[in-house]
């Protein structure tokens, strides 16, 4: 094996030299500030896996195929050395070079530590170090290298082997992206080759267990595919794919990928909307939201509201349109700043006023604006939550001067009757972002659950005019960068869910004792900032519609795809027997409300 290793290392020397030259040059260019920090971020998230893939494919592509093409393979095959030894020594030499090159590729992502202005990069660097990322990436690209070596045994030109491997990789990547979307709750993200938005690879790198298990599986796969290469070369050293065979193989790979993608895309029963209503939003409106109660859906924009009647879902009708001149419903973090109760909309917003704009709670019915509760002048860095209407009282989460409070208003007297301090904003480290965003509030029975930067608070409404803190759980952070970013709440049966960011996870709490939520584990969750629950089922925007799912034991089970054949849902809300999904703008800027019947 020794002479073969020597020869192989000699053959791969150009790769090694190129790797050293490129890595050192880039490092120097970074150190001399030729690139701005975003280069490192782009490198980590997009270029690094791409370059690693090119390196893996390039290294292996020629190892057998080129020798077959130049007929030097015959020179080896007529020596007292078996085909498996030839393949394994190529694999050993290639793996050695790959390890060095991968170290360079990953190291570039950690070059110049003071580049920390980029959030994505900060997140990655905060979560993992060079060693962890290297340990999780190497086995993945080792497998890709092994796979390309297998392709190299199948053909007679390095370029063909690389092309075949590239077809496999591109197809797999496209399939991965498809599955990534189609299997939103699976551990699939941990197996990706690339650093995705929800940080599957980073998560895998962070956890020694996940890193070990995925690394082991990818390493075993690399060894298995190399064993297959060795067996193939031993069995018929000169049998390889011609151009037709190569084309057919590529078509077969794409076909299998397409078929599995199609099967995955169609694995869920599809439900069509019971009815749809299309409208054109006000051209100057910054925000469009939706509310619902039983058969009534309300679309609210900055200065207008539409009341839609879905009593006959196949023929929804607009029952009223109310204009609110000088109103703005959205001035922080988006999110619905409105609630619907007994046919009346409770809208938190601000009205243009002289000398200063006023924050108000407006109560609007189809007949028009019937009441306003003034909350004081508009001030910077004050954030309001969605108002929660319960009987004669309205509860509103307010973050002001870094203090998070729950305010109680009496609708009849239009006065604040109670204020309950829930949290004080304390960034966990000096380097953390000072994100202070609105609270998220969920009402379930006689309790309110409030997600504030530091806590999840259960608020007892036994005495509605005087809400009291029943319990507080510290909010664990996935990353210090996530501190202060709102965590949306939802519920199903005895479970309370909270969406956490960096990476996106669905944290679950047990509500057997509603006064004392108990943290009961996290679910993998990604690409969705919105979730809504009827109590029995959960819904989130998904593809061009809504995904219906439920939590069961340790997993989330997708049940139905509520397809709107639309631009995708930007917001969804539950009312009575319907899930109402508000579509993102269509090409003609019109939008639709689709009502899906809940089973």
């Amino acid at each position: 094996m020794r002479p073969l290793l020597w020869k192989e290392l000699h053959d791969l020397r150009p790769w090694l030299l190129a790797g050293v030259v490129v890595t050192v040059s880039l490092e120097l260019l970074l150190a001399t500030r030729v690139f701005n920090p975003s280069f490192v971020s782009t490198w980590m998230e997009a270029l690094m896996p791409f370059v690693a893939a090119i390196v893996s494919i390039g290294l292996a592509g020629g190892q057998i195929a080129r020798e077959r093409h130049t007929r030097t393979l015959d020179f080896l095959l007529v020596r007292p050395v078996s085909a498996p030894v030839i393949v394994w020594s190529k694999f050993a030499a290639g793996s050695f070079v790959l390890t060095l090159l991968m170290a360079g590729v990953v190291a570039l992502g950690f070059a110049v530590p003071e580049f920390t202005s980029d959030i994505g990069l900060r997140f990655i660097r905060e979560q993992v170090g060079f060693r962890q990322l290297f340990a999780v990436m190497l086995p993945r690209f080792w497998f890709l290298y092994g796979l390309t070596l297998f392709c190299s045994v199948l053909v007679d030109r390095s370029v063909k082997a690389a092309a075949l491997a590239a077809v496999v990789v591109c197809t797999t990547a496209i399939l991965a992206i498809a599955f990534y979307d189609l299997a939103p709750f699976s551990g699939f993200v941990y197996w990706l080759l690339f650093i995705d938005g929800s940080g599957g690879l980073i998560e895998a790198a962070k956890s020694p267990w996940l890193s070990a298990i995925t690394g082991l599986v990818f390493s075993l796969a690399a060894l298995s595919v190399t064993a297959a290469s060795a067996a193939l070369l031993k069995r018929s050293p000169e049998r390889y794919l011609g151009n037709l065979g190569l084309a057919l193989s590529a078509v077969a790979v794409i076909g299998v990928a397409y078929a599995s993608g199609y099967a995955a895309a169609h694995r869920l029963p599809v439900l069509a909307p019971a009815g749809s209503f299309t409208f054109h939003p006000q051209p100057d409106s910054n925000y469009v939201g939706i509310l619902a109660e039983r058969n009534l859906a309300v679309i609210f924009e900055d200065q207008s509201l539409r009341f839609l009647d879905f009593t006959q879902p196949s023929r929804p009708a607009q029952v009223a349109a109310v204009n609110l001149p000088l109103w703005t419903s959205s001035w922080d973090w988006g999110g619905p700043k409105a609630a619907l109760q007994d046919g009346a909309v409770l809208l938190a917003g601000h009205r243009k006023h002289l000398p200063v704009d006023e924050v108000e709670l407006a109560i609007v019915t189809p007949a028009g604006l019937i009441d306003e509760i003034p909350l004081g002048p508009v001030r910077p860095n004050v954030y309001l939550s969605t108002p929660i209407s319960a009987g004669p009282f309205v509860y509103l989460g307010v973050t002001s001067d870094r203090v998070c409070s729950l305010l109680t208003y009496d609708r009849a007297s239009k006065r604040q009757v109670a204020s309950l301090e829930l949290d004080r904003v304390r960034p966990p480290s000096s380097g953390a972002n000072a994100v202070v965003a609105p609270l998220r509030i969920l009402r379930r029975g006689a309790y309110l659950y409030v997600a504030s930067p530091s806590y999840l608070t259960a608020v007892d409404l036994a005495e509605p005019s005087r809400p009291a803190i029943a319990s507080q759980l510290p909010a664990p952070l996935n990353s210090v960068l996530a501190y202060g970013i709102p965590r949306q709440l939802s519920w199903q049966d005895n479970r309370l869910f909270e969406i956490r960011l960096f990476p996106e996870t669905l944290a679950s709490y047990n509500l057997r004792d509603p006064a004392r939520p108990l943290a009961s584990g996290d679910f993998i969750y990604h690409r969705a900032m919105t979730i809504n629950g009827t109590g029995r089922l959960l819904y989130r925007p998904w593809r061009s519609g809504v995904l219906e799912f439920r939590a069961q034991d340790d997993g989330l089970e997708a049940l139905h795809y509520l397809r709107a054949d639309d631009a995708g849902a930007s917001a969804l809300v539950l009312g009575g027997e319907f899930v109402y999904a508000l579509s993102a703008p269509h090409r003609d800027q019109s939008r639709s409300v689709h009502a899906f019947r809940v089973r």
Partner: protein
Amino acid sequence: MTPHALSVEALSKRFGHRLAVDNLTFHVPAGSVCAFLGRNGSGKSTTLRMIMNLLDPSAGAVTLLGLDSRRDHTALMSRIGYVSESPVLYDWMKVRQLVRFTAQFYPHWNQPRVDELLDRFAVDREQKIRHLSRGTQAQVALALALGGDPELLILDEPATGLDVLVRRDFLQTIIQLIQQEGRTVLFSSHLLHEVERVADHVVIIDRGRLVQAGSIEELKRHSGLSLEESFVEAVGPKERQ
């Protein structure tokens, strides 16, 4: 009865619709120098490549030195030397490096013989292979094939593309080799006058089929013709059909 150094049994090779080698059976006695004759494209190289397990036969079996050519391939390769029609060597290596590289594969390596051959062919050991002429490369390939002290030497058109003097050296080397006890040589050629000088056995194939096989002496005695005349008679008439 002399044991066979090489036995080919019902060997066939099909490339698509074309049958390149058709049910070929012949034996090469140990210690003989056997010429493997046929016109261009008659299937000689295909047969030799199948014998060397570089090509899968469609049917049939090959026994080399009493061992199965496929099953015992690696073990056999330390006892067999092979030089292909136009041998390809690692052209980035120096001759010295290539010799050392090759030597490491063999359990017994006869360095003095390799040195002697390289000296005789006047090969500069510090030259890179890519800077050598094709003829010199073929000589280096032969030296390497002989370095493992092979019991069986298989040469595919060893003299093709070589000038007369080099060709002479080549053949001389083969003769020298067989003078040592028990060595067998199988070489393909279509240059009959040279074959007659060195070979004692002959296998003639045409269009993948066996036409004649046996010792040259017997062939001449039976037919009363020279080797060249026998060859033309065996192969020629089909050409006129």
